């Protein structure tokens, strides 16, 4: 037999160093050179690859002084084999809004993590935080102190407000109908305590997208989604339209025919585009295809949607319309209307929600009508794709001039 290279500790993971896409295995190995933690992480991961099973358990709550969250405690279930990751907790660091960095600030984070952690990170976590991936219980406070000194703070975890995020918006995008970044930042600052000290039935997420393209996927993931819209007409630059036509864009097929409301007329002779704005749903398609010719209207603001979340427990929900339009004024400091509403929602949810019940699930359980009434909001058709088709609806006692007896010892399992 021909003599082989010294055998790798991680033959399976090594396979993932091959191929053109950047390899996380390369990075773990890289970190492992300096960090024994990362080396044991690598070895434990190899075991998972071999056994096709994870090797982490959750355990006692860990954290930093004064906060109830921001750290995900994790413990190896094979500390015998991988002692360096006996405890290996992740810290969530609130990213700068819009994920903007100067190299100077970014290097600071790296230095801190080199000193106190595994040297591994996620840029970023899927909520948006900087994820500092793995350190010991002892080092948590130290890391936090160093981060704080460098001007960083932790993000959310547990039954708290989660780190809000926003699309790049006005920083670079011509379509932003409100200032997503500023509002996201302001809300983050205003609700620092809610972010750091879990005290609700479950988690709560805000996301801000400047237009219907929803580049931060708010509608799918946020309990409150702010999605930019306008109320007047799409702005049309007629010359630019003609240029698009001249340059070969098939405006009839690629723009008009794909408008979901078929509210665009295209005159192929005059090369003129007319939009019946009263039918336009601000879907963004036509603007997306012709960015030089079409722009959102001037009366801008956002729609507020509520209830987005992943499947656990009663099935996934997309956010649904709560307020069709918040005017620009309401989306600027001091955000009085918005904050009042947010706090009202939190109070109601806090009081009525079961443990691990997101606000959308609570609304589903007790009925939108109850929620709207509590919030003092008016029902409008924009809230629904269509009205109910079942005849199982309720009347308020005062509508039928009756007192309704409530069964206090209600068994909840039936709901």
């Amino acid at each position, binding site marked *: 037999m021909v003599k082989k290279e010294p055998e790798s500790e991680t033959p399976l993971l090594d396979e993932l160093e091959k191929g053109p896409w950047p390899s996380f295995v390369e990075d773990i190995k890289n970190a492992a050179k300096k960090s024994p933690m990362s080396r044991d992480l690598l070895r434990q991961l190899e075991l998972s690859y071999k056994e096709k099973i994870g090797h982490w358990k959750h355990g006692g709550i860990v954290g930093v002084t004064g906060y109830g969250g921001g750290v995900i405690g994790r413990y190896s279930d094979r500390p015998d084999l991988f002692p360096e990751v006996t405890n290996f907790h992740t810290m969530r660091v609130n990213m700068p809004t819009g994920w903007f960095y100067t190299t100077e600030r970014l290097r600071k984070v790296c230095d801190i993590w080199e000193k106190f952690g595994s040297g591994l990170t996620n840029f970023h976590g899927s909520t948006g935080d900087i994820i500092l991936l793995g350190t010991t219980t002892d080092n948590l406070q130290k890391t936090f102190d160093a981060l704080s000194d460098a001007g960083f703070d932790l993000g959310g975890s547990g039954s708290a407000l989660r780190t809000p995020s926003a699309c790049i918006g006005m920083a670079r995008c011509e379509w932003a109908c409100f200032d997503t970044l500023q509002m996201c930042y302001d809300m983050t600052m205003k609700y620092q305590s809610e972010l750091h000290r879990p005290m609700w039935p479950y988690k709560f997420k805000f996301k801000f997208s400047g237009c*219907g393209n*929803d580049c931060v996927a708010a*509608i799918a993931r946020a309990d409150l989604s702010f*999605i930019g*819209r306008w*109320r007047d007409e799409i702005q049309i630059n007629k010359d630019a339209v003609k240029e698009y036509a001249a340059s070969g864009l098939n405006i009839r097929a690629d723009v008009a025919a794909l408008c*979901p*409301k*078929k509210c665009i007329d295209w005159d192929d002779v005059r090369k003129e585009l007319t939009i019946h704005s*009263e*039918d*336009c*749903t*601000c*879907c963004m398609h036509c603007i997306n295809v012709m960015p030089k010719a079409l722009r959102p209207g001037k009366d801008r603001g956002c*729609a507020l*949607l509520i*209830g*987005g979340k992943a499947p656990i427990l009663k099935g996934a*929900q*997309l*956010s*649904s*319309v709560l307020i*069709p*339009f918040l005017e620009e004024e309401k989306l600027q400091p001091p955000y009085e209307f918005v904050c009042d509403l947010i706090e009202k929602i939190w109070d109601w949810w806090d009081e009525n929600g079961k443990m691990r019940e997101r606000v959308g699930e609570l609304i*589903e359980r007790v*009925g*939108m*009508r109850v929620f*709207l*009434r509590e919030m003092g909001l008016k*029902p*409008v*058709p*924009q*809230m*629904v*794709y*269509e*009205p*109910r*088709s*079942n*005849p*199982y*609806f*309720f*009347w308020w006692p005062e*509508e*039928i*001039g*009756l007192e*309704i*007896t*409530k*069964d206090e010892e*209600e068994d909840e399992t*039936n*709901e």
Partner: protein
Amino acid sequence: MSKTDIGPPYFKELVPPIIAKNYGDWDYHEIVQPGVLKHVSKSGDELYSVRVGGARLISIDRVREYCDIADKYCDGYLRFTSRHNVEFLLSDKSKLQPLLDDLKERKYPVGGTGHSITSIVHTQGWVHCHTPATDASGVVKAVMDELIDYFTSMTLPNQVRIALACCLNMCGAVHCSDIAILGIHRVPPKVDHERLPKICEIPTTIASCPTYAIKPDPKRKSVKINEEKCMYCGNCYTVCPALPILNTDNDGISIWVGGKVANARGNPRFSKLVIPYLPNTPPRWPETVEAVKNIVEVYAKNARKYERVGEWIDRIGWERFFKLTGIEFTDKHIDDFFPGRATFRTSAQFTYT
């Protein structure tokens, strides 16, 4: 004792000869004029069907009058349609005009074909049922008096199927009608604790409630109702007469639109709530008549050719529908019967109108 299980008369013995001859061999049809269909077979034979509207609740003398007409013009053949119109079947074209003249004289409305409003499918109401929240025949009569011109013409964008059911049991295809008139109760049943133990089976009664509002009341060997959870469907009353739900002041009518059954173009679909409550105002239910008429007129004015009511609303959106009809949108329109969330608008797409 007479024979049982003989089943209905065999239809082939009851069809006119022209149908027996051309059975399965029809080639095409035309609507000659409102209420008059002409079916042409591959053999060239022509069958004329003249459709007449009526009160479904009729006396035997009325039936005999139909028979007289059929004897005179149709060699004694007639049929009824799936929506309870009468159809006089003629193979002799020369008798068509005389028949039409005769019908006119009798003030029988001829129509219900094509893009019209045909007869309202309906139910028993106060005439014969025990759970009604409104009457059936009376409301239908009042509405049809108002809409009769749509029966005898074909000027609508497409057919508009109206149905009425006097309670949530929905005897008829009310739940899938262009416009549905539905009787609703609005107060929970009152438990008659004295009769209940004697005449009702408790587990069945409890199981009859869609929202689990009924619980056993072991002390009284009866049941109790959590009124907050009751949405007055009346199903418990159907299974247990000791839970009366009929109510003079609070029963009434709700209006639903946009349902359909045919697969043509858009899929079959349920009707959706548009007016949660209109009072019971016998004998002529003016609020209900007005509401239905308004919807028909707004549809007639705004829909495109071939659009059924629901397809029209699909295109314009419900927000526009409420605006055009001037109907108020309320919290009752938002589905909160599990799994109502499917109807929530999980999209930032809508218009402000």
